[in-house]
């Protein structure tokens, strides 16, 4: 917290909107569901390791859907797995977000034509907020996707009544 204690050490008062404060807190601590489905999960693990250090975005992997904000669907979603993903998504508490990582999760990838066992896009079972193309995407691409999601969270309102 270098910025805060060096510039504002004298007990100053901040003025911001409540939405701005809440959204800043939310987008800085997007806890992630800890699971991977295929080779994209390797890139996701690389993003978690020290070179890319996903934790600087406040992303912590959690092993239970009850504690997470965002689900990275990292890899091929088979039809057998799709119902499990749907259930995990339903178990997450709102507000919840989904990042579809890689071609398989987005549209079926190389399995689009002959992959009888692959769901052609995870958006057929759960809503997706950010799609990341690539096969698999580099960790930088995943970080870019996370920043896109942060932009989305920043524009939301937790205070206004939703329809």
């Amino acid at each position, binding site marked *: 917290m270098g910025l805060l204690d060096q510039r504002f050490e004298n007990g100053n008062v901040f003025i911001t909107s409540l939405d701005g404060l809440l959204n800043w807190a939310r987008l800085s601590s997007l806890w992630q569901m800890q699971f991977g489905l295929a080779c994209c999960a390797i890139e996701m693990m690389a993003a978690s390791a020290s070179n890319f250090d996903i934790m600087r975005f406040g992303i912590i992997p959690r092993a239970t859907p009850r504690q997470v904000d965002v689900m990275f669907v990292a890899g091929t979603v088979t*039809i*057998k797995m799709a119902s499990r993903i749907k259930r995990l998504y339903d178990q997450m508490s709102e507000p919840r977000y989904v990042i579809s990582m890689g071609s398989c999760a987005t549209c079926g990838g190389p399995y*689009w*034509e002959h992959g*009888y066992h692959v*769901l052609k896009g995870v958006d*057929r079972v759960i809503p997706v907020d950010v799609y990341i193309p690539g096969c698999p995407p580099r960790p930088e691409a995943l970080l870019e996707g996370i920043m896109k999601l942060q932009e989305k969270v920043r524009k939301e309102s937790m205070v206004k009544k939703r329809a």
Partner: protein
Amino acid sequence: MTAQEIFDILKTKFGDAIIETKFDAMQPWVRIAPNKTKEICFFLRDDSALQFDYLSCLSGMDYNNGTFGVVYHLASIVHRHKIVLKTFCTKDNLHIQSVSAVWGTANWHEREAFDLYGIIFDEHPDLRRLLMPDDWEGHPLRKDYKVQEFYHGMKVPY
């Protein structure tokens, strides 16, 4: 031991159950009757001169002319020799005797062949689908397979 010698031993022991053979293939094979596989495989495993103690692979086949088959790749770790067995059945009568009592490996291999080709292995202890969901329609690796439109409300084709 060469494929010819193995074939001769089997032919004298089982006679008509050993149908044909091909030695000039890259992997010489012997065709056996589908209702005698267990008996023949027990002999191949237990005979001291043969000792095929290792089932390398068991594959289902669809020859696209109404004929289905199973191919067994056997190896002997003791004697360092190999043989391939083939057995055929028709689409109307997809029954082949299970060899899972001979080699435990065959249990899941046969479940896979049942899952993807619909070949029924008689006397198998637990013949369920291995890879696809239990309520899946059809057997995906058949040549005439058409994928189902929906599975539990999820659209399957692209």
